[in-house]
């Protein structure tokens, strides 16, 4: 804890009158637990995972400290505040430089004191009062590392607190110490460089005994990154995910919800209730072919929700285990051919959860060129959880080959587009340098909170669009526009893609959200109006579409209107072209699924 001698005579920072709440920024190296502290202080949940780069935006919340309401700011992790910075690092530096914070709580991984102090030294130059929190002291102890917090506090002239944030250890001390925050004595005062100062300070206050209790962690970490064991483990992970999401979620749960609940009870009941409505128009609007209940709600709740939920569970588990960054080692070479590096595996895998969020995560990539390529590939090929839901629902019922054909075509399109973009676009890729987080057993509470929040987010985000889309289709159908559109698109839909004419309406839905369009295909496949080959072609086109309106808006926000529209146009052309080519190839080879 803070040493009294070092702090005597300082003016308390918190207890003075203020016109606005005191702004406290949580700053630190990536993956040290800033978001856990944010949650503990404010009672708001910021997504917590076990990989660097979970937080890419600034999150604000209120906390009551003493008798005062303070604003707590969660920031993206930074390894440096000077020199070459990535986009998420720039966001944090900007906040500190613009007076966005008045007090800095530096959160550090107790194991990594040396790196933490390099940052402390750079933060000292910013000139704000600080507190240093050594988080994860339990893991540090397990690895034989101990830090003399009291000595360090005296050395730096600021409070130094030992903490284990997920258990709440150190939170109370942090609250109490806020008034004692002050500007640390670091390299600039000692007339040394940041690195030399951090080296010598870490050596003085940290002791490392040659012992290691993290044996299981270490051998697990090795097993997943060595090719001989790692690749079979990857196959196993994918297979188990398929069993849980594709079979249990997409077949068992969807069957229960769609067939038993909606078709058995809700839809008949809604239809019966609607019979009392005198207007046929309103009746159809609610329970007709494009009815809000019979189509919109059924798609969102019965077909997509179960798969999204099961997927988010598996996904959260993988995120918290520290597994995903290790995949970068295997994929580095492939991504390099696409003008990226292994780091891109993070946004790509996150895209399987939600492409919109993943588009934001591309901020961890270092160069504008890499970000542009990654954003395009996400929009083009990475199916989000809701899209995966419908793919598995339809093709899982046909054959494994149908599923493999779709993924092979989509993946090769991504590689091809990435390969061409890498050569056509100006700029460079950056070095592949990636920190690997420790392998951990995920905490159940975090997993449950995260899954629940994501499901709620899905409902808030997708359900209104499903309903709005259904209403739009209903109106288009009523004014005859759907018929006209279907006729206009016929040469493309029935000719080049070889699909039934009805599929045109489904593609209109796919423009709003591709999972919504895919849910339409799901219905068509169920009623037997799509053959196996037609399902594969239609789903391939749908998968290659831009994911949803939200994703398009995010691309525009991140990269500008012109780039956004260019990506939209390119992706749509590629999607339709690939579908036509696939249709021709499958017909020429007489393939049936």
């Amino acid at each position, binding site marked *: 804890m803070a040493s009294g001698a070092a702090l005597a005579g300082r003016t308390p920072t918190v207890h003075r009158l203020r016109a606005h709440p005191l702004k406290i920024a949580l700053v630190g190296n990536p993956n040290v637990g800033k978001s856990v502290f944010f949650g503990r202080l404010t009672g708001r949940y910021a997504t917590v995972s076990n990989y660097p780069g979970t937080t890419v935006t600034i999150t604000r919340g209120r906390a009551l400290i003493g008798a005062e309401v303070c604003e707590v700011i969660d920031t993206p992790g930074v*390894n*440096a505040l000077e*020199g*070459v910075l990535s986009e998420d690092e720039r966001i944090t530096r900007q906040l500190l430089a613009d007076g966005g914070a008045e007090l800095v709580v530096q959160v550090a*991984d107790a*194991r*990594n004191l*040396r*790196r933490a102090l*390099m940052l402390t030294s750079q933060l000292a130059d910013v000139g704000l009062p600080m507190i240093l929190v050594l988080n994860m002291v339990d893991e540090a102890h397990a*690895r034989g*590392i101990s830090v003399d917090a009291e000595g360090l506090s005296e050395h730096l002239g600021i409070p130094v607190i030992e903490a284990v944030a997920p258990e709440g250890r150190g939170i109370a001390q942090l609250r109490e110490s806020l008034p004692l925050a002050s500007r640390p004595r670091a390299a600039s005062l000692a007339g040394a460089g940041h*690195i030399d100062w951090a*080296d010598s300070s870490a050596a003085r206050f940290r002791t490392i005994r040659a012992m290691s209790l993290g044996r299981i962690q270490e051998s697990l*970490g*090795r097993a997943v*990154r*060595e*090719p001989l064991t790692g690749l079979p483990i990857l196959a196993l992970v994918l297979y188990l995910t398929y069993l849980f999401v594709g079979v249990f979620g997409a077949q068992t749960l969807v069957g229960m919800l769609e067939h038993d609940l909606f078709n058995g009870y809700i839809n008949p009941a809604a239809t019966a209730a609607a019979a009392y409505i005198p207007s046929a128009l309103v009746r159809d609007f609610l329970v007709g072919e494009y009815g809000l209940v019979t189509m919109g709600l059924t798609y969102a709740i019965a077909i997509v929700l179960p798969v999204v939920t099961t997927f988010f569970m598996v996904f959260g588990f993988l995120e918290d285990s520290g597994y995903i960054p*290790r995949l*970068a*080692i*295997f994929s*580095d*070479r492939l991504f*390099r051919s696409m003008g990226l*590096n*292994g780091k891109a595996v993070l946004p790509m895998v996150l895209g399987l959860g939600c492409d919109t969020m993943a588009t934001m995560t591309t901020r961890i990539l270092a160069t504008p060129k890499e970000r542009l390529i990654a954003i395009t590939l996400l929009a083009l090929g990475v199916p989000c959880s809701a899209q995966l839901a419908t793919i598995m629902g339809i093709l899982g019922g046909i054959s494994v080959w149908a599923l493999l054909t779709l993924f092979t075509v989509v993946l090769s399109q991504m590689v091809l587009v990435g390969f061409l973009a890498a050569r056509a676009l100006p700029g*460079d890729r*950056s*070095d*592949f*340098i*990636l*920190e*690997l987080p*420790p392998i951990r057993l995920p905490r159940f509470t975090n997993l449950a909170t995260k899954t629940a929040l994501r499901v709620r987010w899905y409902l808030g985000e997708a359900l209104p669009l499903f309903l709005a889309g259904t209403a739009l289709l209903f109106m288009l159908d009523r004014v005859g526009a759907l018929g006209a559109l279907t006729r206009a698109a016929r040469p493309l839909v029935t000719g080049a893609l070889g699909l039934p004419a009805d599929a045109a309406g489904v593609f209109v839905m796919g423009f709003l959200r591709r999972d919504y369009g895919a849910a339409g295909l799901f219905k068509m496949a169920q009623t037997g109006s799509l053959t196996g080959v037609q399902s594969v072609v239609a789903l391939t086109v749908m998968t290659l579409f831009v994911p949803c309106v939200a994703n398009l808006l995010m691309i525009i926000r991140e990269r500008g209107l012109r780039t956004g529209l260019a990506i939209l146009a390119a992706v749509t052309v590629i999607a339709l072209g690939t579908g036509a080519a696939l249709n021709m190839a499958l017909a020429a080879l007489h393939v049936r699924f």
Partner: protein
Amino acid sequence: MTIQPPTTLAHLAPGTRGRVARIARDLTGRAERLAALGVTPGAAIRVLQTFPGIVFECDQTEMAVERAVARSILVDVD
């Protein structure tokens, strides 16, 4: 004991321990990125894996780098 000249990280076998001698300078800011992760002259280093990428532990951080980056890290082998 004979003093050996530093070897690049790309040439070391898994299990090798040593200390970072220096980072070859270039114009891309590579040395700066590595320094921010704690890979600075004097830091203890242990090679964990060499294929398909190079994985090593530096101080208490485990990290993966591509071969080109490993070539610019010069190590004094213990």
